[in-house]
């Protein structure tokens, strides 16, 4: 089956209410509807899903690994951005 007729799609599954969709894998399908079916049949066979997103792999814009230092390194030294400097009153309970 040619790549043009059956392009690649990325599959995202939401396992439960309140969780976010997580990347599960990818499938080949002719169009959006068939991609949803394929995602359902390949990735939700054991009760994994409540909701599925599919998106054409070619529509995903990804950061370039070459830019890793520029993109992510500067945050390593900014420990004050983590919300770990607060005393949580006992009354609040679990956050």
């Amino acid at each position, binding site marked *: *089956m040619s790549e043009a007729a059956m392009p690649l799609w990325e599959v995202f599954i939401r396992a439960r209410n309140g969780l976010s969709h997580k990347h599960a894998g990818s499938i*080949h*399908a002719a169009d959006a509807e*068939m991609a949803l*079916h*394929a995602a359902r*049949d390949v990735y939700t066979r054991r009760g994994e899903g409540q909701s599925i997103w599919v998106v054409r792999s070619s529509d995903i814009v990804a950061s370039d690994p070459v830019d890793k230092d520029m993109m992510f390194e500067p945050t390593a030294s900014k420990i004050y951005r983590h919300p770990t400097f607060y005393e949580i009153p006992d009354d609040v309970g679990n956050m």
Partner: protein
Amino acid sequence: MTSNQTLFSYVLRLADDHLILSQRLGEWCGEAPTLEEDLALANIALDLIGQARALYAYAGQVEGRGRDEDQLAFMRYERDYQNLLITEQPNGDFAHTIVRQFFISAYMDSFWRRMESSKDEMLAAIAAKASKEVTYHLRHTSEWVIRLGDGTRESHERMVEALDDLMMFTGELFEIDAVAQEMLQSGVGVDASDLKAEWQHTVQTILQEATLELPKAGHMQTGGRTGRHSEHLGHILSELQYMQRSFPGLTW
């Protein structure tokens, strides 16, 4: 026939429909055009096996002679199987498999939905579970019918051929015999003859979108319900029954 024997016969034939079709679909496992469709067909086959198991177990209980689901599924002779002839037809090419499944799913979708209000609580419960499953089978096969019919010239031609080949097995879906009649009158069964208009509407709506036509109804094949089968069933059974015939009572 006592009413229990009639109920046994009615449940058993439904179970046979699902077992034989499931076995056919299972033949695609590892052979389907794509990995995705391989799993899709296996998923449908497993849904059908689940329905068959529930029905065989219930049939054995109704019969009351101690036969369990395995004995009913594996230890009967060819003429004892009462499945619809369409369920035993060969997979052929992908178009034939899809058309066969589409015809049956369109029928079973209406059938199970009505069975949900059966006076028989067990059948109603089986129907409630099965109707969710078959709604997806119908959706999935409909999407394929549309894409293959309105796809390339070759896929269109293959679909036309599959429709022509399988049309003659659709008359049997709507037949009512003495067993079905009695079950209908006692509020247990579904009026299969009454499903025809709905089936035609469902099928024709999809075929129209697929730029295909339902072939004219000519001579219809029949005989499955009385154990008169096409030459294919014996071959299916020889594979299906091999394990239980060689090692009777074998379990997992």
